[in-house]
């Protein structure tokens, strides 16, 4: 076991992937000489050279599309997009090409591509660098959407994502990069398909992922002090969704609260809530609750940003409203 930051864990995963498979290469804006806009790839250019750690011009559509083409051509590209907001410039390539080629070609072609990007708020970066749009991508058949919330997943999800023959998008929450955790030295293969119970409890199920896992765990701790056992489920994979784990928990707790940094309207939290209602209605003792970001573009001022995103206090208050 070694304690590392989430950032170091991703970097280690990238280094191991580059070292073990010649087909792997990393590309994106400032991944090389600059060291990555969040310093994730720092040192990799020096170690692996400019062919395999490729700085790209600012052209999200072209370099994401080039990742798709290179994947079709026999490589295993890892494309880094600085921030989910910028990925919108590559939405065409991701949604119209990466997600469709296998299907449109009748199964002849596939796109073994990994796209990593930062998501989320918490760093006072305002309305064009802070949104949580991963739920949009989770809407799209043909994509696998991952949201590592722990150091172990930050390290462990990359290798199986590269083995996946289809496109995988990995969302790294910007506020997690400095978080430290234990990384087991003998980490076995990490499963990409299942949600994980991060804390057991019998009175309420908190369903969350990515950047809101820490707040949800804090809330569970506070609720425990009040004698309420909150079970915290980390979805890990936003597409496909492991509803079995969620529904099994709800069958025990009879109450569910979804915590999601995305906006509420038309969102991933709406999807999870709908599925619980569709599939476990009779298990519920209360309507499914949700704690989401306020429906505003992300403000800059610290107190306003804090008021937008889900925090432990808001989760605790919502749990009380459910009668837990």
């Amino acid at each position, binding site marked *: 076991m070694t304690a590392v930051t989430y950032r170091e864990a991703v970097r280690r995963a990238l280094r191991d992937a580059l070292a073990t498979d010649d087909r792997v290469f990393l590309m994106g804006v400032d991944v090389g000489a600059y060291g990555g806009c969040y310093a994730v790839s720092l040192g990799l250019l020096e170690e692996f050279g400019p062919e395999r750690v490729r700085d790209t011009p600012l052209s999200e*559509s072209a370099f994401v599309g080039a990742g798709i*083409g290179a994947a079709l051509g026999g490589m295993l590209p890892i494309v880094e997009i600085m921030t989910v907001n910028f990925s919108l410039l590559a939405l065409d390539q991701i949604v119209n090409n990466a997600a469709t*080629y296998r*299907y449109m070609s009748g199964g002849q072609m596939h796109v073994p591509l990994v796209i990593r990007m930062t998501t989320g708020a918490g760093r006072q970066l305002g309305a064009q660098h802070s949104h949580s749009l991963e739920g949009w991508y989770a809407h799209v058949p043909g994509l696998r959407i991952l949201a590592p919330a722990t150091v172990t997943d930050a390290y462990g999800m990359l290798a199986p994502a590269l083995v996946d023959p289809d496109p995988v998008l990995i969302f790294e929450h910007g506020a997690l990069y400095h978080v430290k955790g234990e990384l087991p030295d003998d980490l076995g293969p990490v499963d990409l398909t299942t949600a994980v119970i991060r804390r057991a409890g019998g009175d309420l199920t908190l369903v969350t992922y990515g950047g809101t896992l820490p707040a949800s765990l804090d809330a569970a701790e506070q609720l425990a002090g009040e004698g309420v056992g909150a079970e915290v489920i980390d979805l890990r994979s936003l597409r496909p969704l*492991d509803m079995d784990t969620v529904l099994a928990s709800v069958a025990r707790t009879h109450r569910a609260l979804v915590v999601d940094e995305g906006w509420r309207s038309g969102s991933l939290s709406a999807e999870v809530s709908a599925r619980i209602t569709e599939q476990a209605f009779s298990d519920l003792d209360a309507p499914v609750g949700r704690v989401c970001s306020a429906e505003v573009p992300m403000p800059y001022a610290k107190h306003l940003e804090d008021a937008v995103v889900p925090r432990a206090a808001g989760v605790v208050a919502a749990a009380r409203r459910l009668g837990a």
Partner: protein
Amino acid sequence: MTDADAFPGMQHQVHLLRQMARIRRFEERAVELYSATAIRGFLHLDIGQEACAVGVTEALEPDDAVVATYREHGHALARGITMRAVMAELEGKVEGVSRGRGGSMHLFDVATRFFGGNAIVGGGLPVAVGLALADKLRGLPRVTACFFGDGAVAEGEFHESMNLAALWHLPVLFCCENNRYAMGTALLRAQSEPDLAVKAAAYRVPSWSVDGMDVLAVEEAANRAVEATRFGGPHFLELRTYRFRGHSMYDPDRYRSTDEIEAWKERDPIPRLATALRDAGALDDGARGRMEEEVAAEVEDAVAFAEAGTLEPVEDLERFVTAGSGVPGAAR
């Protein structure tokens, strides 16, 4: 007859004529099937532009790749995908080259390295850059030929892709089929700089502008361009051409004059080459007639194949979304 029986030294030209005739007759038949509702959706015809697809694909090696647009029946056939597989695709049959999941606009074939059939204007260009990047990283001396229209030149993806391919010296041959219109928008109404070669030059990509109504000229330019691309990075080929039909089957063609269309039909690449071959004594009327009969027979065989084709069972609807999808128990 086979093209090898033609006048010695001219077999190849006869082959080019046959390839263009195959595309023309295939599409004319597709129009009939469209009217008979056996084919639906968008159907974009290559008619008038056949010399572009034929001339360029002739210059490619089997291991090279093609990325095309929604107007790609000609490219698919010229590249060697069978008429049967394309016609069955147009009819939505499981025997189609994309199992009926793609349709006219999304022909894919791994065997001939035919990477679609992209119906987003400009959307194929970044993918072509990536295919070439893979070849470069793998040390494979292959070329990716990327076809697109004059309309795509206004898209950001064109400019991003030209820049990236040039910056990284990637073997992409950009083939712009300039038929002067993007749906109803004439080039001069869409481009501040209508000379497309000038745009290529801005990225330091060498370019040629060619008469796209002359298959021999296209092939000659393509031969040079393909080899230059294979070892020297991206090149740009502007193929000056014209579509004789509307943009798609829905197009009432209000934006062009009959005079203009008729003038371009005078330059039809098929009679142009046929006449030249006849004048050279390489293909007399009898041989030409036999070629047409053979092409017609191939088309009818493809139609019969498509009509006899089967439909993908609806239970298989969710297959091929991802590797394991559509099989019972797969996660969604």
